């Protein structure tokens, strides 16, 4: 039902609220991250999940209360996690963390010499970059956070973690 989160049915996500400035714009929500200096643009579904993720609701409850499919909730949570609108479970541990997303890419890079491509959809502020790393028999794909510098999708180089910049938020 919940894909990558299916093993975590007991997870009760908590949205980060500190260090943020928030404004509504139509049915969207703009969130300015005062620590990372980026504006995130939340669509109506993601904003609804974010507001409901108060640590009391499981993923299934979030889907019910937000009137969204499980897939939509999962997508929203993954996006929120990637943007460091931090979601933590009731034990205070990250359940979908930026580190995990970055880590999957970093592992691919570390596995060999890679031709790396950051296929970016940078034109859309607030959207996460889609990236793909190929080579050495490994492929890592996914969405990556934009908090490390504010430059739009550069190339991916390999060291400890993916050293490219993938910022598709609006740096300020």
């Amino acid at each position, binding site marked *: 039902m919940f894909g990558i989160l299916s093993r975590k049915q007991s997870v009760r996500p908590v949205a980060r609220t500190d260090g943020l400035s928030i404004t509504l714009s139509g049915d969207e929500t703009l969130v*300015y991250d005062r620590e990372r200096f980026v504006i995130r643009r939340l669509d109506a579904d993601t904003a609804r999940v974010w507001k409901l993720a108060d640590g009391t609701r499981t993923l299934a409850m979030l889907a019910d209360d937000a009137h969204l499919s499980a897939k939509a909730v999962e997508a929203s949570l993954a996006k929120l996690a990637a943007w460091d609108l931090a979601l933590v479970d009731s034990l205070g541990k990250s359940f979908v963390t930026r580190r995990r997303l970055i880590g999957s890419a970093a592992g691919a890079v570390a596995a060999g010499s890679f031709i790396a491509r950051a296929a970016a959809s940078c034109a859309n502020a607030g959207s996460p970059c889609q990236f793909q790393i190929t080579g050495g028999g490994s492929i890592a794909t996914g969405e990556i956070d934009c908090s490390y510098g504010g430059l739009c999708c550069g190339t991916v180089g390999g060291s400890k973690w993916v050293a490219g910049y993938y910022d598709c938020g609006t740096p300020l």
Partner: protein
Amino acid sequence: MLISDIDLILEQGTGSEAGDITLGVSCLGSAVAVGVPNRECLELLVPLLPPGWKQIGIERTSGEPVRWQSPMRPETTNESIAHYLASQLEYAIAERSETFVFLHAGVVVVGEEAIILPGESHAGKSTLVAALVKQGAAYFSDEYAVISSEGRVFPFPRQIAMRNDLYYPVGRTDLSHALPEESIVASGCRAAMIVFAKYVPDSVCQLEPLDRTSALIELCQNTVGFRARPDMSFSYLDRLLDCPRIFKGQRGDADAAASRILALL
């Protein structure tokens, strides 16, 4: 500026730090100190100060004083230092205002409503503003749109500087004759249109409607001091966006773009 006016400024109280003459300036919700290296430079700076500025005691200013830092060029003159300080002072006023939100934007007025042209420095705002004024619009600003809590736009007039280099104007045009009537200057006006027009040499002017949320993000990017006051900026800019027409696109020739923009009103 008469010498006697400078004497009056000096009599009213300036400070002296690091060999500077330090002047306290209050303007549009900001109180900023500016350090001037010598009297001649002060004489050249005072006419460049923003309209409505008032001298205040240095102890009432906040933040670091605006100062002449280091020689920008071997041939630096008092005139170029004065222009540099005026520009930096304007920015400090914009960044520190507790009353208004300052947008990097050119502004003209048609009738009793404003057309706002957001854009970074050196993005061609002054040229487009001058072209609009040539075609009948009244002049409000070529650098900052000053936004109140109600979303009204206030002027930030100055001598328009057409530049080809940072801080070194190649010519200044006084458009004070093109200001709208005093009542509009005093009370500000609503925005009728916001146009994000990127200058692309030799391009045809192409402007498309822009949705409100995208416009808000663009405005935030052009807001001086957004990082320091995000909540205030969101609030003021959201009210500014009550205007009915928002466009984004590119433009080449300023006269052609001005015609196109006026036709969209």
